[in-house]
Structures are given as structure tokens and as C-alpha cells.
């Protein structure tokens, strides 16, 4: 394998490779070598497995897309927008630490420059021909196509005896036998680590934590090296890899990724990972490190791999992870009210929060008095419950911490599944109120059954939600009192879930493919159901990544209250509209007409307003009790 010690700077914009090499600490050398070898191995031309070759192609494909984003231009709705506010997405802090550390690998966060370049280009709406990207052809030649693997953060499913069409996501730690010397480990596209400030491994997404002690020590060395200089490392760039660091007291979190997600997104993911650890152990874990800096935390997290890997998996399919909002299961207003009423009845009598959930969506939730529940806590709590299989087996009572509510203390959670999807969580501060909570659940269950809430929930799972094909034609011409309803019968071909037909070129009206609407006051969002042509989970993930990038660029500091963004690439037209009340993210056919797309977005907003009492939990905003 050719030695490519400079790979860490080969595609950086403003790194200054080796200009001050004499100042570079050994630890920096060490991590650069480690990172460089990861980078090299992911580019290695000498792969042996077919699957790995596929991965290399995929990565090239992604790179190609990026280049296209540079080439293909967007027009902005409003000339002022787009270019401003998305440029300096990484704070000066880290740029400072770069120059202090003299690390050749540290550069500005890349995707922001992509955006800037794209919006600076003056050629509007370049013609899109297949040859302008070369992308379509490449996709055709990659053997897996869209069907490969729903989690393409990792290399192809080497151990899966070639079942390439399988979309089943397996929970729990995968590839536990790997370590940093394994070729496969180095090829993973997205690593997550937790380690202690003394360098002891706490968690690794791939591979056995204990075998990664050396690698952890290296990460620890670079963090403490920079920290001692009064700075904090936040981002290192090594070739195509971004290394994002987050320091939380005695606990360090690191993400190494070549997925081209914005720095802010990766940092947000590390925050959630930390929050998930707090859910399990509370922040009082810090005291263990005060007593013993070399404290080994791994044993305390025994049996929780599935919780973390399911959270990390959700980074690629659950928009709640970057929107910091929760979503509700669509239900008739009366049904949701019935559920809310019985929860409200029981809350207060020693119950702090009562949540009725269906999968990761809220059916209803109430809190005692002024207690408020943060959307991130809902995400972490439901992830914890859903990824811990034992809750499905029988009713349970478990200590649990809500990091945004009170990171220092345990609450006690009574968890009960009514059916495979629907579960109730009752949270209390009192460790001995199990029987009381159990009795409450029995009362709640009786009411839910009597008012058919549980069967309505099942019905919503089958045909609920906003289907773009149902976007009302002209809401402006209808009297405002006539409201449309969701879940009306539609042709079987449009049935929800993953629509697998290969019918391309369809979508909703005027080329609308998908949208997400986030209500600022409610802390909730609604996402349209996926339909053709966003069929495969891989396409869905790509769209979410695009939204995520859009979200990051819209939430840079220094931006005004009203913003819009319109960009076009070979995959979609993306339109984003941020006001004080809501944020709308919409994806259209790449050939969609801009004026029509804007009109359609207005229709979507009207539609959401029309059906808001079915898709949102109203009058019970966690922040307005």
C-alpha cells in the first residue's frame, strides 16, 4: 500500500501542511497517522471483497455528488439569502485551535464552503442533462444500486453472506470482534466513541471497547494536548474524514466520519449520544471520576449496546435527531383528546409525566403542574425504551434520567406495552410507587380500550399521515371552515410504508416529493409519508441528510428571523422557508419549476394548518403548561 502520509491535507482548503511541522506534538502525529490510515484504507485500491469495492464506489459517488453541488448552481428566492449566514459555520474558537495546534489536518468545515460556493455561482439553474454529472451512469454500474444497505455508514454487509436486498436493521453491537487494526473497522464510514479523560474507552460503535484502548489513548492525548493550550479541539479534518470532539467534563465524545455531514450536525449527534448515556447513568457518574480518575465505566453500561446503536442508527432516519422537535402519530382530534384526558386524570397523583407513544411518535403526553418535557428527552427516552427488548416482555419499573429535565437525578419509569407498537411510560420521582403506577396503567388501559384509542392507533399506522398525493388542490378557494381530513381511503398502490415499486418520475403535485413542517411553538414536526420516487431507505436517508444540511445552514448564528433557501442539484430541488412560527423543508423533482414549487409550499402550509389538530398535539405544548 502506498504510503500517503499527506493524505490528511490533500483535499483541505486552507490547511497548511507541515509548514510548522516542528511544533507538532507527538500525540498529534500519532492521531494523524491513525486517521490517515483510516483515510487511506477507505480509498485503498486493493480491496478484496466485492462488497468493499461497492463501498468504495459508493463513497466516490458521494464525492461526485459534492463536486456536482459545487458545479451546479442554485438561485435563491431572495438574492440576499443563501449566501449570507451559511459561510462561517464553525466558530473562531476552533480556527484558533488549529493555528495553535498547527495541525495540518484541520480546516474549515467543508460543507459550508460547498454551500457558499454553490450560492455564489451566478449561473442560474444550470441545465440538467445526465452527462452534466456523470452520476446516473455511475449509479447504474454499482452493483448494489439503491438496494444495497440501509445503513451505508458502514461498509457493505461483509458478514451477511451476500443478502444485499435486506433492509432489516439489526440492533445491538455489530462486529464486536473488530479493533483498530482490522481493515473492516478502518473502513467504517462513521465511528462514534466515548472515552474518559484518562483515555479509558467507554463506548465504541464498532469493535470491542477494551481492544480499542490504544486508540482511545491516542484520542485522549490529542484532546488534552489542545486543552492544555487553553483551546478545545472541535474539528479535525483528515482527508475525507472529519473528526469531531465534544468534551463533557470527564467524558470525551468523538465522531470520525466521512459522511460529509455538517460539523454542527455531527456535534448535535455527539450531544445526543452523551444524553443517552445520562439517561442510563445520570450525570452523577462524574463523581466516580472525581474519586478515581482511572475509573472504568464500561461495566456500568453493560447490556446497553443496543440503546446506543439504535440511537446512532436513528441519526440517519429520524429527523427528530436534528430538528429537536418531536412528532405525533396522526389521529382524529377526538381520539387524541380522549387519550390526553385519561392521562391528565392520572397525572398529578404522584406522576410527573405520562407519555403514550406509538413507536417513536407521541400519541399524547401530559406533565404535572409546570413540569416540561424537552423534545430531546422524548427522543432519548423512547429510544431507550424501544431498544430495550425486555420492556416488551412484561411491565417494568426502571430508574431512568431525563438529561434536560434533571441530569443529576434518577426518575422511575413504569413501562408497559399495550401492543407491539404502543406503550405507556409513567414517570415518577418516588421509587416505591410501582403499585400506584400499575393501578394507574390499568385505569388508563380500560379507558383507551373503551374509547377505541388503541384500534385507532393501529389504523393510523396503516393509513395515517400526510401523503403528498393528497395535497389539496387549491386551499385558498375553499372556505376556511371546511377542513380536510387525513387517512381517507386511497388506492392500494399508495399504501404507506416503504413503497417498493420502481415507478420513477411521479410524486405529488408540481413535482413535490416530500416535506417536513416544524412548528416552532409546539416543538413538533410533521413529515409527509414517503412515496415514489423516494422509495428505498437509502434514498430516504440521502434526503434526510440533505434536510440536515439545510437545517444546519439555516441555523447558523447571525441569520435573520425570515429566511428562505432554494437550491437545485441533480437529486432534488430543495426549498426551505423559516419564519418565526414554522420551518418548512420541501423536496421537489430536480426539474420542478421554481415559481410552482413556491406556490406548492404555500399550499403545504395551508394544508398543515387545516389538519393541525390531527397531526399535532395542541394545547399541551410541553412548554406551555
Amino acid at each position, binding site marked *: 500500500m502506498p504510503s500517503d502520509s499527506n493524505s490528511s491535507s490533500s483535499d483541505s482548503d486552507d490547511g497548511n501542511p507541515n509548514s510548522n511541522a516542528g511544533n507538532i506534538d507527538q500525540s498529534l502525529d500519532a492521531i494523524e497517522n491513525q486517521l490517515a490510515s483510516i483515510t487511506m484504507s477507505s480509498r485503498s485500491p486493493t480491496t478484496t471483497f466485492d462488497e468493499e469495492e461497492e463501498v468504495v464506489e459508493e463513497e466516490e459517488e458521494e464525492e461526485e455528488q459534492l463536486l456536482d453541488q459545487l458545479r451546479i448552481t442554485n438561485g435563491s428566492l431572495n438574492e440576499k439569502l443563501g449566501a449570507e449566514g451559511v459561510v462561517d459555520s464553525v466558530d473562531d474558537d476552533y480556527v484558533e485551535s488549529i493555528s495553535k495546534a498547527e495541525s495540518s489536518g484541520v480546516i474549515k468545515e467543508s460543507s459550508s464552503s460547498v454551500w457558499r460556493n454553490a450560492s455564489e455561482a451566478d449561473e442560474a439553474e444550470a441545465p440538467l442533462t445526465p452527462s452534466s454529472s456523470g452520476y446516473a451512469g455511475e449509479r447504474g454500474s454499482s452493483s448494489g444500486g439503491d438496494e444495497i444497505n440501509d445503513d451505508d455508514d458502514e461498509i457493505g454487509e461483509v458478514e451477511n453472506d451476500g443478502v444485499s436486498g435486506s433492509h432489516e436493521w439489526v440492533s445491538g453491537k455489530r462486529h464486536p470482534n473488530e479493533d483498530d487494526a482490522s481493515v473492516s473497522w478502518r473502513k467504517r464510514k462513521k465511528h462514534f466513541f466515548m472515552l474518559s479523560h484518562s483515555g479509558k474507552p467507554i463506548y465504541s460503535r464498532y469493535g470491542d471497547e477494551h481492544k480499542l484502548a490504544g486508540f482511545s489513548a491516542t484520542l485522549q492525548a490529542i484532546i488534552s494536548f489542545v486543552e492544555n493550550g487553553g483551546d478545545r479541539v472541535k474539528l479535525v479534518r483528515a482527508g475525507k474524514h472529519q473528526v469531531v470532539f465534544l468534551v463533557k467534563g470527564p467524558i470525551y465524545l468523538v465522531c470520525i466520519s466521512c459522511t460529509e455531514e455538517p460539523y454542527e450536525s455531527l456535534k448535535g449527534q455527539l450531544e445526543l449520544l452523551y444524553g443517552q448515556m445520562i439517561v442510563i447513568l445520570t450525570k452523577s457518574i462524574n463523581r466516580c471520576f472525581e474519586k478515581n480518575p482511572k475509573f472504568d465505566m464500561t461495566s*456500568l453500561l453493560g447490556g446497553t449496546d443496543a440503546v446506543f446503536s439504535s440511537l446512532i442508527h436513528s441519526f440517519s432516519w429520524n429527523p427528530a435527531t436534528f430538528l429537536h422537535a418531536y412528532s405525533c402519530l396522526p389521529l382524529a382530534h377526538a381520539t387524541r383528546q380522549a387519550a390526553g384526558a385519561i392521562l391528565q386524570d392520572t397525572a398529578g397523583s404522584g406522576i410527573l409525566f405520562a407519555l403514550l407513544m406509538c413507536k417513536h411518535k407521541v400519541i399524547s403526553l401530559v406533565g404535572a403542574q409546570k413540569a416540561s418535557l424537552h423534545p430531546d428527552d422524548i427522543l432519548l427516552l423512547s429510544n431507550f425504551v424501544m431498544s430495550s427488548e425486555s420492556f416488551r416482555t412484561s411491565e417494568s419499573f426502571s430508574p431512568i434520567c431525563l438529561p434536560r429535565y434533571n441530569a443529576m437525578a434518577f426518575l422511575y419509569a413504569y413501562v408497559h406495552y399495550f401492543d407491539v407498537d404502543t406503550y405507556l411510560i409513567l414517570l415518577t420521582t418516588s421509587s416505591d410507587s410501582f*403499585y400506584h403506577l*400499575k393501578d394507574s396503567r390499568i385505569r388508563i388501559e380500560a379507558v383507551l380500550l373503551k374509547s377505541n384509542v388503541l384500534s385507532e392507533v393501529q389504523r393510523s399506522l396503516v393509513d395515517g399521515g400526510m401523503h403528498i398525493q393528497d395535497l389539496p388542490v387549491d386551499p385558498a378557494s375553499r372556505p376556511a371552515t371546511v377542513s380536510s381530513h387525513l387517512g381517507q381511503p386511497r388506492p392500494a398502490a399508495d399504501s404507506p410504508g416503504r413503497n417498493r415499486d420502481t415507478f420513477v418520475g411521479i410524486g405529488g403535485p408540481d413535482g413535490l416529493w416530500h416535506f417536513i413542517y416544524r412548528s416552532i411553538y409546539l416543538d413538533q414536526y410533521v413529515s409527509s409519508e414517503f412515496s415514489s420516487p423516494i422509495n428505498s431507505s437509502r434514498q430516504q436517508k440521502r434526503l434526510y441528510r440533505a434536510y440536515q444540511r439545510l437545517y444546519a445552514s439555516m441555523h447558523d448564528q447571525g441569520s435573520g428571523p425570515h429566511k428562505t433557501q432554494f437550491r437545485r442539484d441533480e437529486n432534488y430541488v430543495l426549498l426551505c422557508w423559516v419564519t418565526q412560527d414554522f420551518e418548512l423543508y420541501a423536496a421537489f423533482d430536480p426539474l420542478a419549476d421554481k415559481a410552482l414549487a413556491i406556490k406548492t409550499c404555500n399550499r403545504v402550509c395551508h394544508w398543515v394548518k387545516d389538519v393541525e389538530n390531527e397531526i399535532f398535539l395542541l394545547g399541551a405544548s410541553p412548554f406551555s403548561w
Partner: protein
Amino acid sequence: MGCSASVPEKNTTGRLGGLNPDNGGANDTKNLRVKLVLLGDSGVGKSCIVLRFVRGQFDPTSKVTVGASFLCQTIALQDSTTVKFEIWDTAGQERYAALAPLYYRGAAVAVVVYDITSPESFAKAQYWVKELQKHGSPDIVMALVGNKADLHEKREVSVQDGIDYAEKNGMFFIETSAKTADNINQLFEEIAKRLPRPSTS
């Protein structure tokens, strides 16, 4: 629903407070209700034992318990008394060790489980026995269970070691297999027989 008694519940007074059935001492002579807690290292098969006993099932795919699960099962004895077990299946992980008293406090029965293929789990069982002797109810009925008896070719804890330790500590000893169902019902029947009966006076 977690708790489906096969026998109608006589006592339906509201329960308040505590992880204990309110009427721990108020059983009538024919229908006993007891709180039982399972303790032991993670992975020794506590959950499998309970699910075998309560549902007659064995699921080899490991489902790590979080916190503690609550299940009930009622058995009828030959003298026509019934015993309703309210079972706390604890997680056994280190992070919950400090919270264990939450589950064993007030328990009438403690079943301490180890895995006959794991000496470490046997040591952990002894830790739990000591903990219960210090902090459990004074008249607690304790059983020592060596599980995974079907794996006898991998046995690392001898039957005699189990018997000896149990005898020294006034415990009832049995080896079980949740996988083959061997001795599972016997375990709970033996416990039921040893329960102190409310006096008939």
C-alpha cells in the same frame, strides 16, 4: 397484561406505597400472595426462569433486563391452597446494584441464581446472599438456584459446592434448566411449601 392470575383475587383493596403488596401479612389461609425477587449476575438466566415458569416459554435470544420486570403467577398446591407469586426479575447489572434494595425490600422470598458453567456467577450469588442477610427481611425464604443444568458438559460449579453453600446459609438448593424446563416448577412448588403460613386462629 403483566399480571393475570388464574385464580380470582380475593383481596382487591387499593394498594399504596411500596413495591410490596399491601397485604403481605393479610393473606387468608387458603390464598397466599407473596413477593418474590430474583437476584444474580446478569446472564445467568433469571429472566428465562421466570418466563418458563409464568409463560411456559424459552426464548434463547437474550433480552437484557432493564431495571426490573414484574410478573405474576399463581400455583395451586396439593392441600388446595393457592400461592400467587408477584415476581421481580431484576437486571443484575452493576449500575443497578445500588438500587437493588428497591426490589428486594419487603420480599418474602429471594431466589438467588447462578450459572453452573460460571464460577464468577457463583461468587456473585454469594455476594447477594450476604447482602440479603444484612438488609433483607429477617424471615425471608431464600433459594439458591444453579441454572443451565442442561450444560453439564461445561459445568464448572459442582453440585456439592451448591449444596454446601446453601446448607451453611439455611437456603433451599436446586439446579434448574430454563431451557429444558427441568426443575422449574419444582423450584416454585418447593418455595411455596416453605412459606410461613398465616395462623388459622
